């Protein structure tokens, strides 16, 4: 019987770490009220139980999810961990628990609290990813292209494929200032690295000239008779504006 519900699981923020929490849920008497990443630890009345990541345990859980639920669900859960909401882990646990009972159909239980929560969070993630495929703006410095973004979710793992395909022959870096990590692409090698402090090179004159050309294009293409700022803001929220050259005063 699961007697102990007054605990919080703490894990290291990786997907393997989360799967170990699932393992712990099944093999101990704990039924956590919350699962949090070790970076988010705060004072709480509940007891904190730190779950150490063990590849053997996580492997076992991931294989179980693949077989008893579906490979798609495993992929889905992996992506859910990139969402920006704080309570995603406990809903993911709920999803997995129900999944082990119902199989692949769990994903369609859209009326269920856990499932619909995750579907919504996942949708938010996918939507933002699509938006940022367009809103990433590079500037050129010393033969490399550099971009800074401030998304809400962790988007970099999802953007790797698109950008390495598109800019296969140029070195680039996308720095995610919200989550403090960078996607590096150098000489056809890709890496996502944590980076708390980075120093970015300045834009040179040639770069500024290109940005001015772009801003000129942007300002000219709008039809005055159809001015509709509300519509623009719906598509492109203001929080994204400060990193776009076309929205700056050049």
């Amino acid at each position, binding site marked *: 019987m699961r007697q102990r519900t007054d605990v919080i699981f703490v894990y290291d923020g990786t997907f393997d770490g989360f799967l170990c929490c699932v393992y712990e849920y099944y093999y101990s008497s704990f039924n956590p009220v919350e699962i949090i990443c070790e970076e988010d630890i705060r004072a709480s009345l509940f007891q904190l139980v730190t779950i150490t990541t063990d590849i053997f345990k996580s492997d076992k859980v991931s294989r179980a999810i693949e077989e008893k639920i579906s490979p798609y669900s495993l992929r889905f859960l992996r992506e859910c961990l990139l969402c920006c909401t704080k309570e995603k882990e406990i809903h993911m646990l709920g999803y997995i628990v129900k999944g082990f009972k119902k199989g692949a*159909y769990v994903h*369609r*239980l*859209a*009326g269920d609290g856990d499932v*619909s929560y995750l*579907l919504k969070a996942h949708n938010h993630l996918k939507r933002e990813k*699509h938006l940022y*495929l*367009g*809103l*990433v*703006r*590079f*500037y*050129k410095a010393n033969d490399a*292209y550099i*971009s800074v973004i401030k998304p809400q979710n962790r988007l970099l793992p999802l953007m790797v494929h*698109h950008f390495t*395909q*598109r*800019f*296969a*022959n*140029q070195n680039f870096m996308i720095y995610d200032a919200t989550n403090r990590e960078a996607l590096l692409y150098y000489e056809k090698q890709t890496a996502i690295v944590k980076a708390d402090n980075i120093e970015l090179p300045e834009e040179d004159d040639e770069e500024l000239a*290109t940005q*001015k*050309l*772009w801003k*000129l*294009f*942007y*300002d*000219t*293409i*709008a*039809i*005055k*008779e*159809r*001015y*509709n*700022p*509300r*519509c*623009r803001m*719906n*598509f*492109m929220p203001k929080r994204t504006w400060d990193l*776009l050259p*076309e929205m700056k005063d050049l």
Partner: protein
Amino acid sequence: MDMFEKLKILTDAAKYDASCSSSGTDRGSGGSVGSAAACGICHTWSADGRCISLLKVLYTNYCEFDCAFCINRKSNDVPRAAFTPRELADLTINFYKRNYIEGLFLSSGVIKNADYTMELIIEAIRILRYEYGFNGYIHSKVIPGTSPELVERIGLLADRVSVNIEMPSAESLARVAPDKSKAKILTPMKAIQTRKEQATQELALYRHAPKFAPAGQSTQMIVGASAESDLHILRLTQGLYDRYKLKRVYFSAYIPINNDRNLPALDTKPPLLREHRLYQADWLLRFYKFRAEELLDDEHTMFNEFLDPKCNWALNNMHLFPVEVNTAPYELLLRVPGIGVTSAKRIIWARKAAYLDFDALKKIGVVLKRAQFFITCKGKAAPYVKIDRDHAERYLIASEKQPVFSDVEQISMFDTGFSPQNVTKEDILKCVSGQM
């Protein structure tokens, strides 16, 4: 003339083109620069709320033609400019490498003649594709009257090609664009369609057969510059989809630029509401399996100002409703106002696992504002909803976003100079629909 001036002139001249879509093809990267995503990607939105995904410019705005509606007509005194093929290719690649754009949308005025202009456009695109290895999206206009050899070449280079039909009927076209004719427009359109079908067949036989205009062709027409009814325009649109297999037909609300006796006066407001209704109907044709005859008939040749075409159709066909969400086929779900392709698919997808009630519908993201008058869940209508034409109609009209009365004041007992405004709701609606 420096690049800034050129870009300003040629962008300003291109801005009235409606299309900016970059969807329809998937191009992987060939190891060099560029790719294209089938879903299309918008890169920014301009102040008028339209998305910008392509670098939309004219190759030149010098023009031999004298089309009455066009800002670049021969008889207009406007600053003129032209790119060189190299300049244009450099500009595109510079923007593309910074992820400003998804590709290029190239249109042009006519220098010397249609073929000469097309050759210049082809040269610019050739530099992009073959010298710079650019693998991104390219949309090119085909100028009416272009010879078939050049249509063939542009189709092999570009993702999408388009010939503008400009006016909804041959008579209006002859009146406002004396240099263009129905035949000059439809001939290349037909040629593109036939060649594309041939390429599709070849591709099925030989894996490396070249693709011809893989993202298909589109066209554009001006709405509100001539007297044609919505029914006429919609029938024409349907014909274009059926006979020429177009991907898109764009409508552009007429914005008066030139004073011409064949056109509405200069102070006419662009008929934005009408354009909006036509686009709604266009979506119904393309994604909802509607036919033009279902939406409008000879008695009702214009769309309802207060209701969108789908609601209007549903209210006139109340005998088909209510629809049971848990059992109705996809085609019928699509016909419910407020349920679109996404919602219909989600319903089908979710109802395989469990019976759906109104709460579940809300959770999977179906918006019930309009749909509630036309559906039942497990045989029951939504709480406090009567499924009845009058009831639904009143509610739907009230819930449409109506124009805001900006000059209306709160009445005050101490306000001596109060005079009621004589603007009625109808007047404001007429303004929006362009009748005033």
